[in-house]
């Protein structure tokens, strides 16, 4: 990472999740200069919030470690965190991009020694854990955070806590007067990799996510499995902290539904199959532990079929072909009741569960039309390939609902499209 000067041969990557990181690294490893812009204080995106990947059940941070090592070793990539694009001017081969950087209040002197966090007492909701946990207001976003540098929440920047943190830092790393910064960067091509966000489950009113404590989303459930997450790696019910053993998973929560997301989000079936294996991991052979998956179609596409078969063979998991009609709860126990019809044979059911996990869909974090006014998008807001986009290329989940593997493929492809443009620019300038 170095302070490379941006030119119209520079490639700007917007978004530092797995797709943006991949696009940046693949591009830089072809010998191009890259600026990577990330909105959050650390890169890694939603992949760093995953406990395991399907179908291998391996650890996302393993690949992240490799990517961070590539990043640390590559002087062609400059990473700007807490940064967002505010405007894009110009055309393919010659963009000027306005970028705004929020103050971190901690500069590059930070050694991540943690002295500031020790003296700060204020706590904030932890966005890394979908606000299910409190953390100190001077914090390292998570164990694998890159850059490995603390952040001060704006709420404590002031005479008391802020000054205390500053006094505790022996390395002059805390700058309480840090201001928002505006930059203008040149770029020949832009890779847009702002990723996805989980669909707002509260909008699916019949499922009561906003009313019933024991209805959670799949991304929240994933955080619960992390030993450093909100429940210390255990499946604890939000209502009473008791272990959840009888768990319902509702597929297509928001997806494949014209009232919500009309597309299929592709990953949710596999994510649920993966999460159903967590019961075995957590409870071993305890026969009370049971996952019930309510589904329309199980979309375990191509080689994922192997994983589906493995889960089907698991006595802890049963499948009900049904779009759940609605959820109610027991006011005393906060157990949830799922109502609907099993369409295989048309049987009505009224099933009780300890916990219900909504496999929420994916929508783009930034809709195509919000980018600079003339980027083509589909009806869901994912970027479509189009000549009118100039040299702005969608990558990963900004372009489609994709799993990690496909998102990385997409990012690698976007890297080449960007290189094609800057190579043309370079050729024109020779």
């Amino acid at each position: 990472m170095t302070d490379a000067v941006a030119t119209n041969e520079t490639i700007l990557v917007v978004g530092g999740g797995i797709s943006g990181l991949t696009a940046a690294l693949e591009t830089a490893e072809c010998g191009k200069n890259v600026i990577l812009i990330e909105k959050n204080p650390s890169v890694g995106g939603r992949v760093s919030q995953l406990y395991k990947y399907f179908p291998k059940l391996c650890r996302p941070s393993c690949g992240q470690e490799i990517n961070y090592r590539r990043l640390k070793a590559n002087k062609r990539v400059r990473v700007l965190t807490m940064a967002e694009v505010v405007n894009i001017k110009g055309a393919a081969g010659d963009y000027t991009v306005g970028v705004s950087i929020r103050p971190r209040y901690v500069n590059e002197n930070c050694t991540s020694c943690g002295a500031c966090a020790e003296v700060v007492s204020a706590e904030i909701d932890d966005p890394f854990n979908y606000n299910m946990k409190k953390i100190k207001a001077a914090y390292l976003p998570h164990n694998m955070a890159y850059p490995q540098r603390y952040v001060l929440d704006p709420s404590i920047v002031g005479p008391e806590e802020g000054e205390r943190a500053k006094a505790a830092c022996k390395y002059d790393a805390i700058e309480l007067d840090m201001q928002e910064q505006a930059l203008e960067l040149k770029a020949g091509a832009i890779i847009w990799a702002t990723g996805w966000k989980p669909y707002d489950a509260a909008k699916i009113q019949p499922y009561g996510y906003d009313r019933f404590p024991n209805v959670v989303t799949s991304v929240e459930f994933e955080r619960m499995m992390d030993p450093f997450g909100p429940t210390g790696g255990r499946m604890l019910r939000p209502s009473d902290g008791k272990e959840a053993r009888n768990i319902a998973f509702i597929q297509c929560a928001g997806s494949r539904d014209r009232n919500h997301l009309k597309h299929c989000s592709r990953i949710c079936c596999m994510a649920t199959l993966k999460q159903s294996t967590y019961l075995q991991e957590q409870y071993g052979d305890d026969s009370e532990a049971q996952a019930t998956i309510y589904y329309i179609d199980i979309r375990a596409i191509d080689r994922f079929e192997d994983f589906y078969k493995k889960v089907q063979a698991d006595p802890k998991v049963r499948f009900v072909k049904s779009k759940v009609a609605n959820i109610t709860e027991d006011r005393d126990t906060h157990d949830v009741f799922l109502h609907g019809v099993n369409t295989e044979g048309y049987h009505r059911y009224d099933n009780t569960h300890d916990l219900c996990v909504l496999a929420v869909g994916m929508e783009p974090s930034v809709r195509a039309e919000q980018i600079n006014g003339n980027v083509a998008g589909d009806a869901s807001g994912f970027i479509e390939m189009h000549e009118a986009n100039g040299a702005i290329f969608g990558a990963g989940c900004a372009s489609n609902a994709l799993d990690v593997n496909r998102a990385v493929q997409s990012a690698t492809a976007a890297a080449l499209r960007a290189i094609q443009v800057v190579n043309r620019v370079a050729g024109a300038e020779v």
Partner: protein
Amino acid sequence: MSETKTAMYICNGCGLGDRLDTDSLGKLAQSEGKCTIVRQHDFLCNRDGVDTIRRDIDDDGVTHVVIAACSRRAKTEAFGFDDVALGRANLREGVIWVRPDTEEARETTQEMAEDYVRMACAEIRYMQRPEGNPNTGDNKRILVVGGGVSGMAAAVEASKAGYEVLLVEKSGELGGWAARLYKRVPNREPFSDPQDTGVEDLVKTVEHDKNITVFLSSVITRTSGAPGQFSVDISAESGTTSTENVGSIIQASGFSNFDAARLPELGFGASADVVDQAGLELLAGKAGDGPITRPSDGKEVASVVFVQCAGQRSDKPGHLPYCSGHCCNTSIKQAMYFKDTNPDVDTLLLYSDLRTPGNGEDFYRSAQRKGVTFTKGQVREVQTANGALVVKFRDMILDDDAEARADLVVLATGQVPNSGIDIEPAAAEDENEGSGVDAASNNNAAVEVPLESVLNLDYRQGPDLPHLRHGFNDSHFICFPYETRRSGIYTCGPVRRPMDIAQALEDATGAALKAIQAVENASLGRAAHPRSGDLSFPSFRKEGCTQCKRCTVECPFGAIDEDEQRYPVFNESRCRRCGTCMGACPVRVIYFESYSVDTVGQQVKAVQMPDETEEKPRFLVLACENDAYPALDMAAQQGLQYSPFVRVVPVRCLGSVNTIWVTDALNSGYDGVMLMGCKKGDEYQCHFVKGSEMAHYRMSKIDDTLQQLQLEVERVETYEVEITDIQRAPKLIDDYVNRVNEIGMNPFKGF
């Protein structure tokens, strides 16, 4: 070569100065460590600290630098001096953060730090700054094997970036299966109707592209060399062969259609009116905008049944266990061929799970609007008696047996990869004699892939890329989809996994990027993923080599060939720098400039061994740098503690662990050696494929040696550790230390 001048920089920040006697560490570096310059700094990673080091390098001729501060994973950019040999002594995450700040702990903590300083000095003495592989090739042409959509797209995309491409197609024309489609599934809004395939345009683009040379009716009959310097024989059907040099290779050899004749129960073969999806495309193409007629008698089709998952997602012998992904959308498209011409045609689609991800959902809804009937049903039989087709199925919704009569039945059969020869079964026997590693479990048995080699690599390890599951040449890694096990050779399209045109176009573009990257890096002598940019490369001392072949057999990437006398021939540009060869070598003649039997072995020896009366055991931990080592770092960051008696050495891969390190450690008085590697087996996480597995195997063999030395086998243990084992890894260490302590001290201490 210039004179060696070693400098150590000891940081006093982050509590190091408070917790450790850094003055005595400095003296140690000077006396035992032979460092010419030793400096202390209160805050080494800041501008002033870094400038101090920079000045010594620039003005004082320092060639070897040791940073005694935090973990090599921290402040990597600040200390990124790439013009010197660089070592790190991990005093923060490796020492003070894992020890309590108490008076009692002070002595053992200091001893830990002293040993890490000794170890870093020992390592740097045997380290050279990697100069880069001199044996590079700078050919930047790209070979694409396969002229279907994937291959053509890869060629066009590489060309657009300015690279020359050779495109080799086995048949007499470009286009592959996609050229035989009537229309394709839509890839843009409103996702409601079949659209033109675009294949004709793509073929024209290829034919008019000056950067692309097309070889039709040709196959690859030999591939040798390495990234940047491959040599390939392209042999035409006419009998002529031309030898071409290329820098990297994209294998886009596509798929074959599953042979529907294997589905007699579904009537294929018994009636001409039972066709597969490819057959229906031909009928649709023939009909054009007119009505589709049935093959048997030319009658206009009034009713058609689509049978999904025909011979797929099935455990029956000869069937495909996987889902081909595209077939639901394809059948929907084909049902529209009928409905768009004549809405009165009955179109019934029988499926078990309808799989239309993403905007395929719109396409599915569009078909419903057009009147296509979808039923969840399991087809048991297609009866063909008297020319009338009857589809018998279990209606899963009504939970009842049902049947449908049809003029035409379309079987949605799957894709079988053209992935060449499965080299694993053949290689496994050979490997077993050397290493005992089991053959990769043969998941491919169910799927018969065509048995012609695609690349005819003249590599020692076989003519094609290793298969993954079900014959596909895919990457094993979720986050690194292009990582094949042969450097500079990438696959794309349905040879990787079943896919449709849209995915193949995207995949081909990604593969083209990797192929370009491979030629750019090869010409600079740099490693490819996962040690991207690493300039070190393996060499060997021929005089010591016993031609045992272990290195050539065990290289996971096929980077090492053998010459006529069975000496290894390193193809440095194929090498991924894992060091598995170094770990395999029984006579220890293989080394990298910056990583060798000595750089680790001397660290092992540098640790000061207390005699048995002191009751301070010593344990060596060899930790995979990608998983176990970061896990220990993060444990330290969390304030978790572990025994002060362990000395941790990061290794590139457990596969690089040479057993001499283990036996030397035990001979010199260590009480035990612990290996921490990543997950092995079918779902391996080892980014060097077999490293962890090799280490487990090699360590099982070391038991004999231990017994000869009359040492307990429990003293050497190998563990699988994940990067997330932040809590487990320190506990694993402590449990292990306690267990060995119960056995007692190593009797070799003091000898």
